[in-house]
């Protein structure tokens, strides 16, 4: 599903140029659950942003489902991202002015889905995330765990093939953290590919494979559990 070859990404401020990713190569199969680990500033989030097509690499190739997407313009990237990719963030990133239902509904609106269909899908996914009873609440009225469940609901409501999770349990207590990881595992078992950035050793054990980044390069890669390529 994801094939990254020799990508480089640097950020330039007025005086300094920082190399965030340096010749990174990565392959993620459909259905795989990959954890990316490493110290702060090692380039984990930059890599995740590139995989999520929120940013472009300066050099190298990025094939998504066989299509080169590394050099696409913002609107083209948005087109591919819509419906294919779901995001889960450490700080949940729900829109404060929208209710739970409306937050989850938002990606479907951008897919121009009909209202009746949207309602059905949102209700379904909220049921599944066990948050349906809170559908009319605003994010500030929910606990952290509940907010993250809403974020996951929003990520999966489009039946995204790939979920990118950036430290999804970073702002949660251990109980809620485990719940979120179980949800992600469940989604993975149903066929959703997951790439997760984490600091947590515990969370990394949910993944099939763990990649360690340091100073913008992949330094180690370990297999937690076997992953079988379907088909």
């Amino acid at each position: 599903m994801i094939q990254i070859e020799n990508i480089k990404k640097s950020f330039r401020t007025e005086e300094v140029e920082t190399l965030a990713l340096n010749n990174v190569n990565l392959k993620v199969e459909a259905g795989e659950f990959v954890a990316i680990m490493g110290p702060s500033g090692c380039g984990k989030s930059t890599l995740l942003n590139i995989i999520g097509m929120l940013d472009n690499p300066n050099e190298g190739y990025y094939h998504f489902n066989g299509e080169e997407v590394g050099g696409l313009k913002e609107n083209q990237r948005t087109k591919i991202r819509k419906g294919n990719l779901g995001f889960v963030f450490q700080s949940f990133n729900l829109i404060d002015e929208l209710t739970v239902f409306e937050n989850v509904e938002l990606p479907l609106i951008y897919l121009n889905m009909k209202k009746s269909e949207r309602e059905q899908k949102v209700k379904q996914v909220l049921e599944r995330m066990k948050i349906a009873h809170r559908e009319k609440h605003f994010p500030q009225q929910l606990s952290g765990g509940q907010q993250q469940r809403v974020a996951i609901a929003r990520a999966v409501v489009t039946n995204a093939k790939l979920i990118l999770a950036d430290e999804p349990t970073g702002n949660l207590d251990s109980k809620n953290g485990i719940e979120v990881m179980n949800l992600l595992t469940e989604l993975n078992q149903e066929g959703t590919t997951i790439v997760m950035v984490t600091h947590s050793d515990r969370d990394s054990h949910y993944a099939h494979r763990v990649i360690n980044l340091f100073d913008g390069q992949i330094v180690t890669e370990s297999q937690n559990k076997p992953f079988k390529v379907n088909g």
Partner: protein
Amino acid sequence: MLKNYLKIAWRNLKKRKIFASINILGLSLGFSCVILIFLFVNYHLQFDNFHKNSDRIYRIVTEEHRDDVDYESSVPPGFAKGFKADYDYADKVANIYTREDWQINGTANKKSLRFRENVVFAEPDFFEILNFPLLEKLGDQTLNQPNTAYITESFSKKMFGDENALGKTLVVKNKETIQVIGILKNLPKNTVIQGEIFLSYKTLKHYDNFIYSESWGGISGSLMCFALLHPNQNIAQIEKSLIQLVTKHRPTSKNVHRYKLQSLDNIHFDNRYGGVNVSLLWTFALIGFFIITIACINFINISAAQAFTRSKEIGIRKVLGSFKQHLFWQFISETFIISLFALIVSLAIAIAVLPSFNELFMLNLSITSLLDIKVIGFVLVLLIFVSLFAGSYPGILLARILPTLALKGKLTQKDTGGKLTRKVLVTMQFSISIVLIVSTIIIGKQISYAINADLGFDKDAIVMVDIPEKIETIKLEGLMERIGKISGVKGSTACLTSPGGTDSNWTTGIRYNNRAEYEEFYISAKLADENYINTFGLKLVRGRNFYVHDSITEVVVNEMVAQKLGLASSEELIGKQVELNGGNIKATIVGVLANFHDQNFHKDISPVFIAPQSNAFNEIAIKIDSQNTDVLLAEIEQRWKEIFPKYIYEFSFLDEHVARQYENEQRFLLMSKLFSGLAIFISCLGLYGLISFFVAQRRKEIGIRKVLGGKVGDILLLFTQDFLKLIFIAGIVASPLAWYVMNNWLENYKYRITIDWWVFALAIGAIATITMVTISYQAIKAATVNPIKSLRIE
């Protein structure tokens, strides 16, 4: 999608109440101004647009070519007859002759009533040319018989109450009895024809033989000639052919006439012929544009500054699949909602102030004017324009936010950009405000100069009282004697008009010192008794006052006569013979007066003569002791009524007449004051919003500065110095612009003030002070907070 945008917009409004209120209030004020200005402009643009065949209706006017060109909205009384007889350009031609404030007596319910009204003597075809519909008429009579009249329904109600006015009689000027033969629908306010009583033109023979005689000897500004031309006429060709009328009827006159055809839609706007200055309308429209621009700038600045606080939402939307254009249109929708709110509030404001607006600008607008299709169209266009104008820039800023930074909370104010744009926009606001303040000061100064300058005659504490026309000498003398005996009356004179402060100006040709020909210039006649010079405090610089004899043998002139005659000294005038008024006056110049402003400051001082022609006296001027005005006025009225019991007593103060000559300018001044005040207020609202936002943004910095020893003054300076710089730049930009605009405006005056540098300094200083006051409240509040609190927030 739209529903989602609107939902978010509504919730954002609720969440950011202060900013929303600032935006809505600013835009509401801007909208109400623009709507009212549109109504004002539209009202004027619709003058006389309701007549059938309006494209074929023309007023014939005259260019008088002497040493100068004068423009008269009239023609000689004989013109209409000549035009009809000698040419075949028109279906109909008709004269009307209007006189103001004539006394009308009538009887209703056995009760006698009397009023002063504008009367119009009209030829029957006038009502075939212009559309003033008759509601009822007596049989099939038209205005072709003497002593008949149409009256308006409002005058009918005023004079006869609920009784049917048809067939009833009126007495005009205590002289002729007139029968009402028709009731006209009330004339709209937006027509150049203003009158309540339309007398048949044939009735004029009892009142003004000069007009009725169809003479070619002169022009009265009270006469107007309208023509309904045949279709497809060549106007230039008609005007050219009319030269033959001049050759035929005025072959030797030094005052060479050129007759021009003025289209109906041009009458109201041709200021050469007494119309409204159209540039005034466009100035108001421009001011309206400025005000709404200022309100939009507030919106843009506050929204752009807030883009930073909305970055998370934008980041999320982008991640979830929103294209840039989605975000752009989302913001436009939000702006639309705010603008719609503002529009609703502004309509309420406009409705509330409409009565005062009507009174102030002499309009006749009702709430239903707002339902006019043009107004609705304009309001919709305005709404869309403001939504796009105010929403586009913040929309673009928001759409270009990088989601990767936004979601990590690493976005800074710098990343959202727009700092330079904000500075430019704020400078623009300051510049507009400075231009408006400078203009207001200069207009005010010029009007004050015109009203308070030494006009060369006394205007204070002088009461002008109308007297019936052509009264017997014995009655006038009796009145003057009685008034002269009142203790507190310092002097009195009977005259045609006061030396200045009047629009009515009788001019005539002059033949000097038995020269072969009349002079190129015309001289203004101030016909009055021997007390005129003393009562008005005119300065006699040569010779003496005239003595009154049975016929006019002596006159006094002003120094301008010597100048116009090209004499080296006014001394030369004394003892010279002059022939005036077509030879009716042959007299010796016995005195020369210092020049005085017989006209308003737009015009040059005219050559003037004063002669005692008592049959032309219209009013008396009484100089009174201003300490005792009320008692004196009552006594004057009593004496007057003893002599003229059948007439309506009317008086006015001369200084008010002088001020009234600048009525339009005073209205313009008032509008400038209002709009400048509003512009400054709306700008301050925006500044307040901006500064509140900046203070919130820099709370941590303020805390750190205070911990490190910063004083309140230092922190105040931190916020004010940027704005002071912008005001300085605005001053540099606005001052030459304001100078240019106002210098152009002052060019309309022959007597004008100079533009002093301090006016600009004052305007800039005022803006700086107002800005400082606006900013200081928020800045001092932030600077006096305990720094521990500020740092804890972070």
